[in-house]
C-alpha cells in the first residue's frame, strides 16, 4: 500500500536544475580567475605564433614551395590552443570540481539528493554545466581565432572544428575525472589533488614514456594528452572519439555511483568495479575501430590524391613485415609517412613488426631495416621510409600503372605576415577588462518577480 500523497518524482523540469548548476559555477571565483589567467597565456602564445608565422611567411612570399609549407593549423592554431590545453589541464579541474565539491563540503548535497531527480540526472546536469563552463573558458582562444581572421588569416573550417572537437573531448574528460574525484573525496581540496594527480600524472607519462618500447609505450597511451594528438595532426579518429566518449561516460557513471551518501561503501565499491570493467571493455572495443579521416586541407595524413585513388582500389590483403625495432627513428618515419596512410586508405592491411628488441643491439643483423611487402602472392623488399619509393613498389606488386600526379591539387599554403600590434592590448587589457565586467554583472543582485516581491512584503 502506498499513500496517494507521495510525490511524482519522475516528471520534474530539468531547466531549473541546469540553471542552478551553471549559476553555481558562475557564482564562484574559480571560473573568472581561470579566465583572467588564460587571457595572457593564450594571448602570448597567439602573439608568438603570429610573429613566427609572419617571419616564415616573409621569407616564403616569393617562393611557392616554401609557401605551401605554411599551414595555419600548425603555425597558429595548434600553438594557440596548446596554451589553452595547458590552462585546461592545470586550472579547469578546480572549476569543474566546484560543480559538486562545494555542495559536498557545505552539506548541501543532502538537500540535492532529496530533490525529485534521479542521481544520473543530477550528474548529467553537472556534466552539462561543466561543458558549458568549457565553452566559456574557450572565449580567449576563440577570440584569437577571430583576431586571426580579422588580420586576414585563413581557417579551414573542418580542420578547425576537428581541433576544437579534440579539445572539447579533452576538456570533458578532465571535467568527468574532476566530477568523479569530487564524488569520492570529502573536500574540494582533496578532489583537486586527485584530479591534478591524474592530469599532471598523465602529462608526466607522456613526457617520460612516449617513444619507449614495449610496456612503457602501452602505458604512455593511457595519458589523457594522447587524446589530443590526432586532432592536432588533423585526423578525425572515430575510435579515439568513441573511446574518449566511453571514458567520459565511465567517469561520469562512477561519479553517479559515488554521489548518494546513503549507499553503503561496499555497494559503491562493487558497482564501481562493474562500471570500470564495462568502461574498459568499451574503450578497448573503441580502440579496434580503425576509421580515421584526414581532415586537413593540405592532406598531410594522406598520399597524393591520385595515389589514394589507386591504393583504395587494391582489394587484396597487403601484408607488411617490418624488420625494425619500434623505437627506431626509421620505424617512426615509416609509420608516419607510409604505414599509417596505407592503413587508412587500403581496406586490408596487416603490419607485422618482427624486431622487438632494442635496435642498437641489432646492428649485426643483415635483415634489420628491411621492410617486406606481400600482395597478391608477390613479395618485394625495401629499406625506404618514403612514400615516393614505396608507392611504385606497391603498384608493381599489384600490377597496376603508377598514377600520374594531378595538376592543381597541391596545397598552396597560406603565408601571412600580419601586424600583431593589436593582439597584446586585447589579451592583456581589453579582454580581461570585459571578463571583470562580466564577473561584476553576474554578481549583482537579481530582480525579484513582482508577485513574489508583493507577497513577501504583505
Amino acid at each position: 500500500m502506498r499513500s496517494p500523497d507521495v510525490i511524482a518524482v519522475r516528471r520534474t523540469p530539468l531547466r531549473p536544475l541546469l540553471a542552478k548548476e551553471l549559476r553555481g559555477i558562475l557564482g564562484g571565483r574559480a571560473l573568472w580567475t581561470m579566465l583572467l589567467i588564460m587571457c595572457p597565456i593564450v594571448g602570448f602564445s597567439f602573439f608568438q605564433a603570429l610573429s613566427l608565422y609572419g617571419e616564415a611567411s616573409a621569407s616564403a612570399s616569393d617562393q611557392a614551395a616554401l609557401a605551401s609549407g605554411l599551414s595555419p593549423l600548425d603555425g597558429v592554431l595548434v600553438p594557440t590552443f596548446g596554451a589553452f590545453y595547458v590552462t585546461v589541464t592545470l586550472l579547469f579541474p578546480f572549476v569543474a570540481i566546484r560543480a559538486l565539491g562545494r555542495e559536498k563540503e557545505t552539506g548541501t548535497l543532502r538537500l540535492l539528493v532529496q530533490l525529485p531527480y534521479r542521481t544520473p540526472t543530477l550528474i548529467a546536469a553537472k556534466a552539462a554545466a561543466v561543458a558549458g563552463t568549457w565553452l566559456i573558458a574557450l572565449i580567449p582562444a576563440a577570440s584569437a581565432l577571430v583576431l586571426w581572421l580579422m588580420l586576414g588569416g585563413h581557417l579551414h573550417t573542418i580542420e578547425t572544428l576537428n581541433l576544437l572537437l579534440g579539445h572539447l573531448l579533452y576538456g570533458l574528460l578532465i571535467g568527468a575525472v574532476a566530477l568523479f574525484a569530487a564524488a569520492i573525496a570529502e573536500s574540494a581540496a582533496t578532489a583537486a589533488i586527485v584530479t591534478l594527480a591524474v592530469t599532471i600524472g598523465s602529462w608526466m607519462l607522456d613526457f617520460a614514456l612516449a617513444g619507449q618500447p614495449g610496456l612503457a609505450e602501452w602505458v604512455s597511451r593511457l595519458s589523457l594528452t594522447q587524446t589530443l594528438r590526432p586532432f592536432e595532426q588533423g585526423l578525425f579518429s572515430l575510435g579515439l572519439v568513441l573511446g574518449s566518449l566511453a571514458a567520459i561516460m565511465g567517469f561520469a557513471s562512477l561519479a553517479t555511483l559515488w554521489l548518494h551518501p546513503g549507499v553503503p561503501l561496499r555497494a559503491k565499491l562493487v558497482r564501481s568495479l562493474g562500471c570500470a570493467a564495462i568502461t574498459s571493455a568499451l574503450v578497448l572495443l573503441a580502440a579496434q575501430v580503425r576509421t580515421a579521416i584526414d581532415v586537413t586541407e593540405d592532406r598531410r595524413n594522406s598520399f597524393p590524391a591520385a595515389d589514394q585513388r589507386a591504393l583504395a582500389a587494391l582489394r587484396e590483403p597487403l601484408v607488411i613485415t617490418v624488420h625494425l625495432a619500434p623505437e627506431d627513428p626509421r620505424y617512426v618515419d615509416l609509420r608516419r609517412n607510409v604505414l599509417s596512410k596505407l592503413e587508412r586508405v587500403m581496406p586490408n592491411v596487416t603490419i607485422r613488426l618482427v624486431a622487438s628488441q632494442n635496435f642498437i643491439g641489432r646492428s649485426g643483423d643483415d635483415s634489420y631495416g628491411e621492410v617486406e611487402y606481400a600482395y597478391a602472392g608477390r613479395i618485394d623488399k625495401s629499406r625506404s621510409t618514403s612514400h615516393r619509393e614505396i608507392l611504385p613498389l606497391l603498384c608493381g606488386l599489384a600490377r597496376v600503372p603508377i598514377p600520374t600526379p594531378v595538376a592543381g591539387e597541391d596545397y598552396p599554403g597560406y603565408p601571412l605576415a600580419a601586424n600583431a600590434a593589436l593582439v597584446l592590448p586585447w589579451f592583456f587589457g581589453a579582454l580581461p577588462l570585459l571578463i571583470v565586467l562580466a564577473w561584476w554583472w553576474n554578481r549583482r543582485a537579481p530582480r525579484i518577480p513582482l508577485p513574489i516581491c508583493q507577497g513577501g512584503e504583505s
Partner: protein
Amino acid sequence: MSVPAAMADLVAERAPPLLRVAGLTKRYDEQHALAAVSFDVHAGEVLGLIGPNGAGKTTLLEALAGLIPVEAGELMWCGAPTPSTERRDMMFYLPDGLRPWDDDVVVRVLTFFATVHRRSQREVAETIGSVGLAPVLRKRVSALSKGYARRLMLALALLTPQPLLLMDEPFDGFDLRQTRDVMGLIRRVAASGRTLVLAIHQLGDAERVCDRFVLLADGAVRGAGTLDELRTQTRLTSASLEDVFLALT
C-alpha cells in the same frame, strides 16, 4: 457514539501508522549510534525526537531519510516496506545549520526549489511571508544571519510537497519570539495535513509544540508516547517532559 463514527475509529486504530520504524541500527566503528530503534509516526502529528546532544537524533533523521546507510532495520510507509531510494518521494529532511548554495541569492534558491516542486509564485510569496524572509531576498545566502539562514531552510521545507517533514533542531538560531512564531507555523503546517518529525534538544520547546515524543539516549529509545502516556509510564502524574526524560534515561 454513532455506529459509523465508531467504525471509523476502529478502522483508524487498525490502519497502519504513516511510518513504522523497526529495529533501525547504525554503528560507527564499534559505537552504536542507533541501537535497534523502533517507533511509529502517525499521520498529521508533530512527533518530537527528544534527547541530549549525541543521543543519535540527527543520525536517526538521516537514516530515516536514507541519507546514511544503516546496518539493520526497516521502514514501513503505510504498512509497505520502503527502500532508502524511494524515501525522498515520501519525506523531506531538513538538516541543521545548513546554508544551501551559499554563493547564490536567497530569492534564486527559493525559486529554484519552487520551480522544481512546481510551486506558483503566489505560493512562494506566501511562504516568504510566513517565515519573514522578505528583507533578505536579494542577499547572498552566505551573508545571512543565523536566524535568517534558518528561516530560509524552513521556507525550503514548506515548498516541498512530501507528506512527511523531518526537521533537525528547527528552533536553533531563533530568539524567544521567533521560536513562538515558528512553533505557530509548524502547528499550522501539521493542521494542513502534513506530518512532522522534529529533533529537538530543548525540552521546553518540544513540550509546547509536539503531540507525541520519542525519547532517545545513547542511540536507544527510552520511551515513546504522548506526555500523559509517558507520565503514566513513569508514574509521575504532573511531571514536565524534562522530569519524565530524566526519569527514563
